[in-house]
């Protein structure tokens, strides 16, 4: 019984960790690829065009 509970908690922690890392990754991509503020857009411009992010 104890083992089962531990293993469930372990899986939940793992799932939360995975979710956290994926969200951090998506957050980075949101800024580098999506936000259209002039400063970010200009700085990321060439990369955005070349990698096919919708731009302008």
């Amino acid at each position, binding site marked *: 019984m104890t083992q089962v509970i531990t293993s469930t908690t372990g899986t939940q922690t793992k799932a939360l960790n995975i979710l956290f*890392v994926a969200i951090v990754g998506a957050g980075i991509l949101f800024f580098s690829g999506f936000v259209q503020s002039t400063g970010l857009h200009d700085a990321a411009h*060439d990369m955005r065009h070349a990698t096919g992010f919708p731009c302008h």
Partner: protein
Amino acid sequence: MFKNMLAGGLIAGFGAGLFAAMLHFAFVQETIILAERYETGELVHFGNDAVGGESETVSRDSLDPGHGDAEEADTSALTRNVMTVLFYALTYSGYGLILAAAYQVAGLFGRKISLQQGILWGIAGFTCVQLAPAMGLAPELPGTISADITLRQIWWLGTVLATGAGLALIGFGRNVPFVVVGVVLLALPHVIGAPVLDSFNGTAPPELAAEFSARGLGVGLAVWALLGWLTARFAAPEAA
């Protein structure tokens, strides 16, 4: 596991990002710079009389290199290129983290990711975020006029998610219905169709736009293959 995923994803992404920047400057940047000279009207493509200016066929040899005020142009080109390197590193770090997270999800289902499998995962990632979206919204040269940015971003994101889910179902589905749903998901964004304009308004020669698109996709494939490999190297799930 958490540290492994976070640090491994970042290291892999950063490395792939630097490789991306290198290939960008080797293959892509010159087409962007040239397109901008058409965008500003400095060069006029012969097929584009409406813009005004002298119509003439421009030869490739007459275009290179060095143009304008040397020193000022050098500084701003340097800043611009440093930004490009930084944003490649940033973007692929983001992709590296997401790929590392995806590897861990596969790990939860008892799968191990070998280095060779990492390359396949990378190619699948390339298909999701570059190839599939490019079939509706081809990579655009500066100066291209296109549909509303928000609509395009929504379609792009939807296509990435649908393609990812579709490939996962085809790759890991246990029976035929999974594969069928996977194929439907792959097709769906293209059946819906990307937001495009009714007219063509590009200022640059079509040859240049084609070159830019093809090179961008080729660079993307190479970088994603490396990203998949590096992420498998630094952030593969531990054996269950």
